């Protein structure tokens, strides 16, 4: 492959393998043993993989919407890469959900052909960002919570979930560092950036309650050592947020963090998810069975 001419290197092949966009990819879990852990309910494991997979898929889509809109090209690259990591995690988790379900659905069917009421993501993932401050506030909260979750999930009794989580820990550590860096820079910046960063943290805060409210599926699987009870993540989350807000000279929001306003784990969502799915699923639904 030519290394000097990027365009040439893309076009000097006689197959389509370079065009890694769209649908119809190779199974990301090809060759990974598909056996389910003993005694675990298929429907529960499928639902749990959908929860974590949908969090990543929907958050990734929101991050992709920042491409061409970020304040600097470096941040464009960062947000795109973080979205790509999460999309990769989503592909693995949706594929695992399909295996656990056992009904022949793969990642494409699950990503493109489910209605909003079948999505299991938390509301934090679907919330649109009013400005860059809200993006980094949301990303800080999301990645701090997800890192604590994946770190515990790396010892799951489901070896596939454990492996996906162990890989994700390395990635989400960088996501959290990126978001925390911006929260500190804007919070400890000018009067204007401080005020807007505080407003962004305050705006995101009511969505944090849902993150720690366990769903019955999570509790059943946590009992079996397969899932993580999210209420156990609260102390680590609070410790990280307290430290970031302190260094950023920001106040802890006075708005209540709960009870959870959303019930995303049960498929109850706001209009924002419908808007995301219209955009994400439109092409796949318009061309059933199409691969590109």
């Amino acid at each position: 492959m030519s290394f000097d001419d990027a365009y040439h290197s893309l076009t000097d092949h006689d197959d389509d393998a370079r065009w890694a966009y769209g649908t119809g990819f190779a199974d990301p879990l090809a060759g990974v043993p598909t056996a389910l852990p003993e005694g675990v309910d298929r429907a529960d494991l499928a639902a749990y993989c959908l929860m974590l997979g949908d969090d990543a898929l929907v958050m990734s889509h929101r991050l992709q919407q920042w491409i061409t809109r970020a304040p600097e090209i470096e941040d464009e690259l960062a947000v795109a890469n973080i979205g790509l990591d999460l999309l990769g995690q989503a592909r693995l988790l949706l594929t695992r959900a399909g295996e656990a379900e056992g009904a022949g659905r793969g990642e494409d069917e699950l990503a493109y052909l489910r209605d909003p009421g079948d999505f299991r993501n938390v509301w934090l993932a679907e919330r649109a960002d009013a400005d860059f401050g809200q993006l980094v506030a949301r990303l800080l909260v999301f990645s701090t919570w997800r890192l604590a979750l994946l770190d515990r999930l790396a010892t799951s009794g489901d070896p596939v979930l454990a492996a996906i989580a162990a890989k994700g820990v390395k990635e989400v550590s960088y996501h959290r560092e990126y978001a925390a860096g911006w929260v500190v820079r804007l919070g400890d910046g000018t009067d204007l950036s401080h005020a807007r960063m505080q407003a962004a943290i305050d705006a995101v805060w009511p969505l944090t309650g849902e993150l720690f409210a366990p769903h019955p599926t999570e509790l059943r699987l946590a009992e079996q050592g397969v899932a993580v009870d999210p209420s156990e993540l609260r102390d680590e989350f609070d410790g990280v947020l307290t430290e970031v807000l302190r260094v950023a000279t920001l106040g802890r929001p006075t708005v209540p963090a709960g009870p959870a306003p959303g019930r995303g784990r049960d498929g109850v969502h706001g209009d924002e998810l419908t808007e995301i799915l219209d955009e994400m699923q439109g092409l796949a639904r318009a061309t059933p069975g199409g691969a590109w």
Partner: protein
Amino acid sequence: MSARTLTAADVAATVTDPELPMLTLAELGIIRDVTESAEGVVVTITPTYSGCPAMEAIRADLLTALREAGFERAEVRTALAPAWTTDWISESGRAKLAEAGIAPPGPAPRRAAGPVPLTLGVRDDGVACPRCAHPRTERITAFSATACRELRRCPACREPFEHVKAI
């Protein structure tokens, strides 16, 4: 079928990475296993990052290279655990990265028990400039043209450069 002069493992090892074409897959450390049997060749690889689009191209390149070397029946499988670490990039791979102006990764972070530690602000991660060898350089952004690289700059020669992040 053409005459085979190489083993399947030899062929797989020499396929190059599409994003870092100075490195072979063996130097990148993603080939876990290559087996040949009557049913064909099975190459097991481990992904670098969950969302790395190069994995798709790597699968296709492996199958093409094996076919051209006379291995008509081949399959690429994934091994997720243990997760890939930059510690698996070989010495020759590191030398080639540096020669191409990309600072190779340092040792992957070792964690004590407990939560993943939070890093805030500037950290001295000991990345030397691949052009002038100045020992201390600064990060511009933790993400670059691919997820595995970050952008840095050298305060001595003033050149920006890429660095493969240690994971």
